[in-house]
């Protein structure tokens, strides 16, 4: 028993678990929209773009979350705008914007004499380094995004399923798309410290994709996705403590395993249904 509770003895581990829980639930809830709107590439894009914000914030001595947040939201809105105005497909728009912003971050950093920023921790995350003030910010932004999901629930569902008919019925599909992109940007910024730029996309996609295998209605898919997300982040963090591996990588590996287990479960369920 002592062995199992051991990680909770440390304050930094307690903070890490709370942050992991928030990030897991939030990412996979938003992941439901990401999967159903086929926006997987966007999570990756916004995360990479926010790197420029992190570097700018560092150089100016500003808060990491503010720098990353401003750049992430601007990139998200920019993606929506260019996509609607230009005759360019969404994945091309994202491809152009995110590589450009990431390069800007690398460029600014390369001008510094020393690599004072721990690049590794931004790319792969360091949830154990979450400070008390970080945790409050993570929780506050999580609440903001969660409230937005509740308030916009029906509109987001309708415009995700059938944007054209929703629009004709008087539900402003473009406004919902922008709102979703901003919510997604905030979610990604919150998650950066936990799983890092490279792996945040996995957390947005994988738990929701696993839930998609096992459900046939929207609300249950979202509920199961958030459960999976929480299980992966909390379980992954726990596991990483014992196997002494990177928390971000362990979390994502666990999510990947869960996805394949869901696929297997789906086929098993189908086979037993056919046999019955």
């Amino acid at each position, binding site marked *: 028993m002592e062995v199992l509770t051991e990680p909770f003895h440390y304050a930094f581990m307690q903070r890490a678990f709370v942050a992991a829980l928030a990030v897991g639930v939030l990412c996979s809830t938003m992941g439901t929209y990401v999967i159903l709107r086929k926006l997987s590439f966007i999570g990756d894009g916004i995360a990479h773009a926010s790197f420029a914000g992190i570097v700018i914030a560092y150089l100016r001595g500003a808060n990491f979350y503010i720098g990353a947040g401003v750049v992430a939201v601007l990139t998200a809105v920019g993606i929506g705008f260019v996509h609607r105005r230009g005759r360019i497909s969404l994945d091309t728009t994202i491809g152009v914007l995110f590589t450009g912003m990431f390069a800007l971050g690398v460029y600014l950093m390369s001008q510094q004499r020393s690599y004072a920023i721990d690049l590794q921790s931004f790319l792969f995350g360091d949830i154990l380094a979450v400070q008390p003030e970080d945790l409050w910010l993570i929780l506050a932004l999580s609440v903001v995004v969660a409230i937005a999901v509740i308030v916009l629930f029906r509109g987001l569902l309708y415009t995700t399923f059938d944007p054209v*008919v929703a629009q*004709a019925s008087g539900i402003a599909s473009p406004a919902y798309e922008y709102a979703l992109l901003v919510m997604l940007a905030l979610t990604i910024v919150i998650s950066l410290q936990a799983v890092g730029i490279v792996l945040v996309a996995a957390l947005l996609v994988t738990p929701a994709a696993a839930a998609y295998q096992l459900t046939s209605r929207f609300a249950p898919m979202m509920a199961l996705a958030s459960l999976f997300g929480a299980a992966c982040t909390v379980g992954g963090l726990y596991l990483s403590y014992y196997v002494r591996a990177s928390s971000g990588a362990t979390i994502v590996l666990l999510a990947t395993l869960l996805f394949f287990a869901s696929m297997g479960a789906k086929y098993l369920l189908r086979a037993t249904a056919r046999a019955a």
Partner: protein
Amino acid sequence: MVARDLTVRYEDFAALVDATLTVRYGEALGVVGPNGSGKSTLLKTIAGLLQPSSGSLSVLGSPPLKLPPGVTAYVPQVEAVDWSFPATVWDVVAMGRFARLHFWQRFGAQDREVVRRALEVVKMSALAGRHIASLSGGQQQRAFVARAIAQEPRLLLLDEPTTGVDAATEEALRRIVRELVAGGLPVVMATHDLDRVNEWFDRLLVLDRRVLALGTPDEVVASGTYAAIREHTHTHGHLRHDHEPHAAHAAHPEILR
């Protein structure tokens, strides 16, 4: 619904030119014309999905985009939805209520009752719990019509709802449309099917980017425009613009209020 000199362009191409028409309460207006004649463009413009480049359009006295949510229900020609979306027939029809509900309002007993009745009207009650991917083409079409009915719209727009459905579904749809119209709902429906227009519609609009004729099916048939369209539609050709619009019908729009 009133349209005056309505012109809609895609880039440089005018898909609809100077269309003037009205739709009255409790009337089914059929829109016929060859492929590319602007039928879908007209419906999308009325639905507020396309902006007119000139002319005026009002639905219940307002431009489409100024209307409160829920007024216009639109059933597109091809539903470009993801059929593997996690939703049952019930879920899809329930979406029809969403435009009518503010975020603080719960999806209540009354909403469920409206959805239940809409499913009954299209004879889909037994399939309410089915996933949408397991429906036939006709069932999918009826589910989307039920969603439009559940919206309790003041104007219903149907874009070729009978394309690709079997004869039984087509007859079911015709009966649904006639029932809704009898209840006072104005319906505008684009169709390829030129048989039985008398049984479907109160008035007929013949369109080939311009309004060629507008009147009761009998009047339109008598005008000869219809025969030309019929011939061209069946050979899938495009009409040449050597027909003058029927000024007698087109020039005197009646106001719907």
